[in-house]
């Protein structure tokens, strides 16, 4: 649907190469009241995640006898997008809350906490494309910050197609004007993809290329998550590619 050129002489509008991530900053333990938390910037995305639990689930009839219930909420601040959006949840919010939950669940030992809930609340303060991936990346760090044991960290990154090229980590305009968006979440140690959606059109070959590129992005982000958890803070400078 695009008319505007998104890649000019091999360079994307924000100056990146096809296989380059946006600058990323991750910080754990940013909220005093939450059991765990993380703040993430990826390009102009600003996301804060708070984790509560394992804790007693209310109302009790929703509790499960043999495992914890993982609850996720993806929520956008009214000022996070242009024009301002209503604070009431949209259908998109509902779907994203669900796919984020599905992306995180394989990493957790829910069976260890019968009758409990683990609550992951994602607040999008500013949205700039690929927010569901960034939310999963941040939530993963917040879960570790909460002291909740995990099988592996879940790292997430999108790939996509713009101006007929497969590229990494779509920003807002690339998502809206581009030809395909492929958000992926991955547990690198376990080799499992836990989020996989696609919008737009890709040939099977392009899909293969885009999936591999997204996984490279996930691996890179995985390293940043681990650094952030070691030092409580990590910032990846500009101009670093995924390879």
């Amino acid at each position: 649907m695009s008319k505007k050129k998104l890649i000019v002489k091999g360079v994307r509008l924000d100056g990146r190469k096809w296989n380059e991530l946006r600058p990323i900053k991750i910080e754990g333990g940013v909220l005093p009241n939450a059991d765990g938390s993380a703040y993430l910037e990826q390009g102009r995305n600003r996301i804060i995640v708070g984790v509560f639990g394992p804790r007693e689930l209310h109302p009790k009839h929703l509790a499960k006898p043999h495992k914890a219930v993982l609850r996720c909420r993806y929520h956008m601040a009214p000022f996070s997008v242009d024009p301002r959006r209503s604070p009431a949840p949209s259908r998109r919010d509902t779907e994203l809350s669900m796919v984020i939950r599905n992306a995180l669940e394989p990493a957790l030992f829910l069976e260890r906490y019968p009758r409990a809930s683990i609550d992951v609340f994602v607040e999008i303060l500013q949205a700039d494309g690929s927010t569901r991936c960034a939310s999963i990346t941040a939530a993963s760090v917040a879960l570790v910050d909460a002291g909740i044991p995990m099988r592996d960290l879940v790292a997430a990154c999108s790939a996509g197609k713009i101006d007929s090229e497969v590229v990494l980590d779509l920003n807002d305009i690339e998502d809206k004007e581009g030809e395909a968006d492929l958000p992926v979440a991955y547990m690198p140690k376990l080799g499992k993809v836990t989020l996989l959606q696609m919008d737009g059109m890709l040939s099977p070959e392009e899909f293969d290329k885009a999936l591999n590129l997204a996984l490279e992005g996930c691996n890179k982000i995985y390293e940043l998550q681990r650094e952030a958890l070691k030092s409580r803070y990590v910032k990846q400078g500009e101009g670093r590619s995924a390879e």
Partner: protein
Amino acid sequence: MKRKRISTALAQGKREDGRGLMDFRKIVIKKGILEKAEGSAEVWLGDTRVIAGVKVGVGEPYQDTPNQAVLTVNAEFTPIASPTFEPGPPDETSIELARVVDRGIRSSEAIDFEKYCIIPGKAVYVIFIDICILNYAGNLIDASALAALAALQSTKVPKYVAEGGEVKPLDASEPLELRDLPIAVTVGKIDGSLIVDPTADEEDVMGTRFTVTVNQEGNICALQKSGPEGLTLEEIRKAINIALEKAPEIRKLLMES
């Protein structure tokens, strides 16, 4: 128990209901079943039964796409479809269902939205696809995507003309032009086995549900993974290939109905 029964069958390369892993249940497609809707269709996938209705009206375009028609897909799980469904506003599952069907149609560019603009910035066609689940027996996405498409195929678009900035109805209509026929194929994973067209029981024990929507030219035009388990790269590739293989069979059925 249910789990064991299903697993035992799968271990022998079979399904509980006797099907092979790559077999769909019987598919019945009826188009144009309602007179009052501009388009309609009913689809049976085994005992799963879905109706899709298309209503076409005139309304304002979205601000950022002033010369494009508006498409809205909505799904309702009626309480007659299962003893566990309750009446009420759409929940997470029905919202996801509608959005996956919507994405397939939109990404394949099956409808030329610019063609269905009447007065740029002022009046465009508004196309509602409403999906009504009448009986739930598994694999609602494939059934619903198929019903939506069949309903679009049967759709007659009432004609309007722009006269002095106003929209006037003409007493005429013409078939909706469809440029593609995107087919959704859902693959389930149980104990590491991949299957197509899962039943309700299979869905209950399934760790992953992965829907691949394939267009006429064999391109992928939507993906949706769901469920609490992950997929390996190998499994993803297999599932994609299954979809690429199955989609033309189903499209053929659709075209012959």
